[in-house]
Each structure stands twice: as C-alpha cells, then as structure tokens.
C-alpha cells in the first residue's frame, strides 16, 4: 500500500426487480493497492445504500464476490485496483454472465451449486491428492493424512467466461466438469451418461477461457480435456470387450 490516491469512476451495472437495467457512475478516491471489492463496499457505505452485491470472506476462499471488471471475470476481493485500471479512468463493474441477476451485482448461483452436488464434487480432499506442493512432512506418508479444502471455491467465474455456457443453459459448465474430473478415475458409473453427453463434456469448444479466469488454480480446461480422454478410453474398452464377447460366442 502507498500514500498515493487515485480518483476513478466506477461504472456499475444497476438492476432492481421489474425495472430496466442501467449503468450508474460513482466517483471515488482509492488507494491503487486496495481491492476492487473495497471500493464497491465504500460506494455502498458512503454513497448509495441501495447497491446490492455479494461478498463474504475477502480473501478468496468463499467465492462470493465474483464480478466482471471491465469485461473480465474477477474475484474482486483479491483484484487490486492497480491491476485493472489507472488514475482518472473509468472501471466498469458488472454481474457475472450465465446466471440470473438477483439485483445489481449479485447473481443467483444455485444452478452451479446444484450441479456440483449432482457430480458429487468433493469440498475437502486428502492433501496427497491435491496436486500442490506442501511442506514435505513425514506425516504425509502415514495413514494419519492431512485433509484440505478443495481448490474450487465455486465462484462461477469460469461459467461466466465460458462461450459454450452462453449457448446452452443446461450445459454442466467448466467448474462442474472439473469437479467430476477431480474425483479421479474410474468415473462414477452413475455419472457416465451425464458427462458423456451433449450438455456434458462435448459442449466444450476448448476456448480455455475458464482456465484463464480461474482465481484458484483449478485449471478447468485441462481437466475437461483429461476427462474426455478418460471417457473415450472407457468407451473404447467397453467396445473392445463387447466385440471380443461376440467373437467368443
């Protein structure tokens, strides 16, 4: 942080039930090293108490404060103002796409949570499966295993950024497919049909926008490709075994 102050304009998307949407400008003095969410919270506290937005943890663990900042999906609690704009500029802040707007910057992410539940995405997992570098402790090698919260914070940024999600409201979407992949191999048999379908793995056009905006190292794009490989491989084996079965008859 510094003593430098910037004057910026936040151009915020406004929407109340049964009223047309519009953009409203708020002039605000900011420290360039504070976060976009801090500025939005100050607009609410000191300029307009009707502003609706979601936020909770303020350190990227809850996933509530996802918004589009100048058209790019950001977790606003860890996005510094310096990283997205400059002194004197206008910063456009809009709700996430591909979710219904509740009001202003808040969206209803019920569809994401429901689908994460459908694919049985884990919220906690043994640390040895977490694909991260952790302190190399002897404990890691015992049965007394560390558990940690998963990488995916269900913030919905990837769903908002995904061009394929925009084409079909029933598409499972990147976070959900990544959640299914993170459960590992073999794929849960009850989920194969759902994953191996038009609204599952095959709607993805490999744009990798999901991976670009993910604030939490999930890399959904890679996981979708990986899960496709698994499904193709499983289908191939099934076909092979079936054919072999017929030959034997």
């Amino acid at each position, binding site marked *: 942080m510094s003593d430098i102050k910037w004057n910026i304009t936040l151009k915020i998307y406004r929407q109340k039930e049964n009223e047309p949407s519009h953009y409203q400008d708020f002039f605000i003095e900011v420290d360039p090293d504070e976060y976009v969410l801090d500025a939005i*919270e100050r607009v609410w506290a000191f300029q307009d108490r009707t502003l609706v937005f979601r936020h909770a943890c303020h350190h990227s663990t809850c996933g509530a404060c996802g918004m589009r900042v100048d058209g790019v999906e950001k977790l606003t609690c860890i996005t510094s103002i310096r990283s997205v704009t400059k002194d004197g500029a206008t910063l456009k802040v809009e709700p996430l796409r591909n979710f219904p707007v509740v009001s202003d910057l*808040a969206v209803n992410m019920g569809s994401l949570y*429901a689908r994460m539940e459908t694919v049985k995405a884990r919220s906690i997992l043994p640390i040895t499966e977490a694909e991260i570098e952790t302190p190399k402790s002897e404990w890691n090698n015992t049965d007394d295993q560390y558990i940690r919260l998963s990488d995916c914070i269900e913030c919905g940024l990837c769903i908002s950024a995904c061009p394929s999600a925009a084409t079909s409201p029933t598409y499972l979407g990147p976070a959900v497919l990544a959640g299914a992949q993170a459960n590992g191999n073999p794929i849960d048999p009850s989920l194969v049909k759902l994953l191996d379908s038009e609204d599952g793995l095959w709607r993805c056009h490999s744009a990798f926008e999901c991976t670009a905006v993910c604030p939490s190292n999930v890399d959904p794009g890679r996981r979708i490709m990986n899960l496709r490989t698994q499904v193709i491989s499983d289908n191939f084996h099934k076909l092979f075994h079936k054919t072999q079965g017929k030959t034997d008859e």
Partner: protein
Amino acid sequence: MDRPSAIIIGAGFTGVATAHDLALRGFDVVVIDRGDICNGTSGRTHGLLHSGARYAVKDQESAVECIEENTLLRKLVPDVIEPNGGLFIAINESDLIYRELFIESCETCHIPISELTPKETIRIEPNVNQKLITAFTVPDGTFDPLRLALAFAATAKIHGAKFRTFVEFENFIFSGTGAVVGINCVDRTSNQSIELRGDMVINATGAWVGEIAEFAGITVPIKPTPGVMVAFDQRLVNRAINRLNQPGDGDIVLPQRRMVVVGTTSFEIEDLDYVPVLDEHVNLMLQKGAELVPSIRNTKMRGKYMATRPLISNGSGRSAARTFKCFDHKLTQNVDGLVTITGGKATTLRAMAEGTANMVCSKLGLNTACVTKEVPLVSYREYYTIKN
C-alpha cells in the same frame, strides 16, 4: 397458539445457527439480512476452529465451550473443515514461562495436548521457526466461513426456515403495550417494503446489535472490535500454528486451501459499516506471522482484510471475555418480544444458538428440547438448491 414463530435479524453465524435450532424445535422461522449469507463479520472470520487452548489460561469458560463445540462440529459438518490439528510453539524465554500454566489450564479444560521436541515439530511442520524451543499439539482446525454458515442455513431450510437475503431491517413494530411484535423491512432487490410479524424477534446482528437494539430504545453493552488479517499465496503449514503465550497480535498462522492466513490485530472504531485495512496492521501481521513461519516474508500477499468482533463490553480488547450472551429485553428494559444474542465466536455458533433458542422457548412457555447436537448438517450446497 399455532406453530410458534420467530424472526431472526442477521444471517451470520448466530442467525443461521439459531434458525437451524428453532426450525428443529418446530418454529416457523424467517431470517433476514441486508446482504447475503455471511455478509458481515462471520464471512471474514479468520477460520480457526478453536480447540480452546488459546483461551485456556485466562478465559476457561470460553475454552471449555470451544473444545466441546469443536468436537461436535467435526462430526456434524465435516465437509467444511480441515481437521488437521494445531501447534502452540514457544520461540523465546517469555513464551517458555507460559508453558506450565498452559499445560495446567488445558488439563483443567480437558483439551488434549501433547508436547513435542523441536526436532519432532520440524519433522511434521518443516516451515515453522527453526529456533523454536518447545511445542504442543492441540486439536485445532480450519473451516471455510461461508460454507459453515451455509450448512446450518441449508439444514434450517430443510426444516422449513425461510431466508430473505438482501432484506434490510427498518424498524420494530410494537403492540399497544410496547412489546415487539414484528419488524418493517425493505427488500433491497426490489425496493419493496415488507412487514413481518412473529412471536419473537431475535437480534442476531453480531457487532451491529447495538445499532438495531437502539430502534427499540435499548442499549446493549457491545464493543465492536475489528482485527486485520492477511492471506499469503502458499500453503506453508498444514496445521494451525499458534504462539505459546497470552493471546496477542498476529499470533496465529492458519492453513486454508492453498494459502496461509495470519491474524489478527485488535482496535476500536466509530463507523461499523466501513473499516479501513490500515498498512501498519498489515505490516504487523507480516512481521508477527514471520516469527512463527519465517518463509511468510518471501511469500506473495494474496489478500488483506478485516472483521469486526462483537465483544461483550465488560473488559477491553483482548481482555474481554469471548463467551456469548443472550439478552432478554423484558428483563433488561421491560421490552417483551425481543432477545439479542451476541459475543462468542464462530466455533461456538451451535452453542450460542442453543442458548438463544432456550431463552426464546422459555419466554414463550414452551418446553421443547434442543436436538442440534444429534442432527448432522446437510451439504452447504443445498442452501441454494432447496426452495425457500
């Protein structure tokens, strides 16, 4: 009387847990909050599932509450908790003086601890300060604040509780005899006014209880006390690392997902609705955190933030007790129909709810027992999938 009804103001930890408790006791419950779930202090909680060891020496009532509730939450809501335990480490001679008292107090409070040599400590947590003199394991943990609250709210919803988020309290509705019989509020998503009536109104607004109670001419002895936390971009430890000494600034380093979070400070404020995160506090967290886990100095900062503790005002700052308190305003200011719950901490949310619901039932002459110790919570995701 038909089904008893309650209106809860505030969808933070106490609000959602009280909704859960009362819904299980057969109440018709409505929860309102001007924001979404965990919009205030609860969402920004440090995330330490306290073993109670932090309070064992000075505040044994809190310590005992913590170890009991810690043990329960691990069973009731395992999908939001990193249950990896914690360490209290001594770095210097002054820490070591605290050792005897710490051992005795943890024993008194039935908090299981075991002492490790520096070598054993470094073997399980290689990134802690190599100069440590001694360490104790404690049954601490880490939780995801929003998801902990959502799990309570989801289970409350299954039992019929309704959540009206983005609905802001405006004022109380009084009967001819001056009792609170409901509230007026406004739906911030539509600017529509809403009138809610119930047998009991519960003020569960944490640090804001004083502001809400004022609308009924009531003073609540609350001292909102913010603290600053800083998140760093690498998971440097797997257990909660505490300083073996009296509670102070920056003496806890918590693992969470791929991060560690250092907290916290303690100061007083005027305006509750916006508290700036001051540089001096952030720098202090960096410095104090690095005393426990030196590599924090070389780790990128990921976020800096604050939360305002709702301390009951019978001491100042950290000397104030961390227990919770329910106020029956019939007894305090002769206003019936209204209770306030505040104080406490996230780890004890279920117990706070039990105390509040007991008070509500007793005021309404109901004799229904609390069952929340036995009811496991449903997935936090169901909060969004169950219709209101």
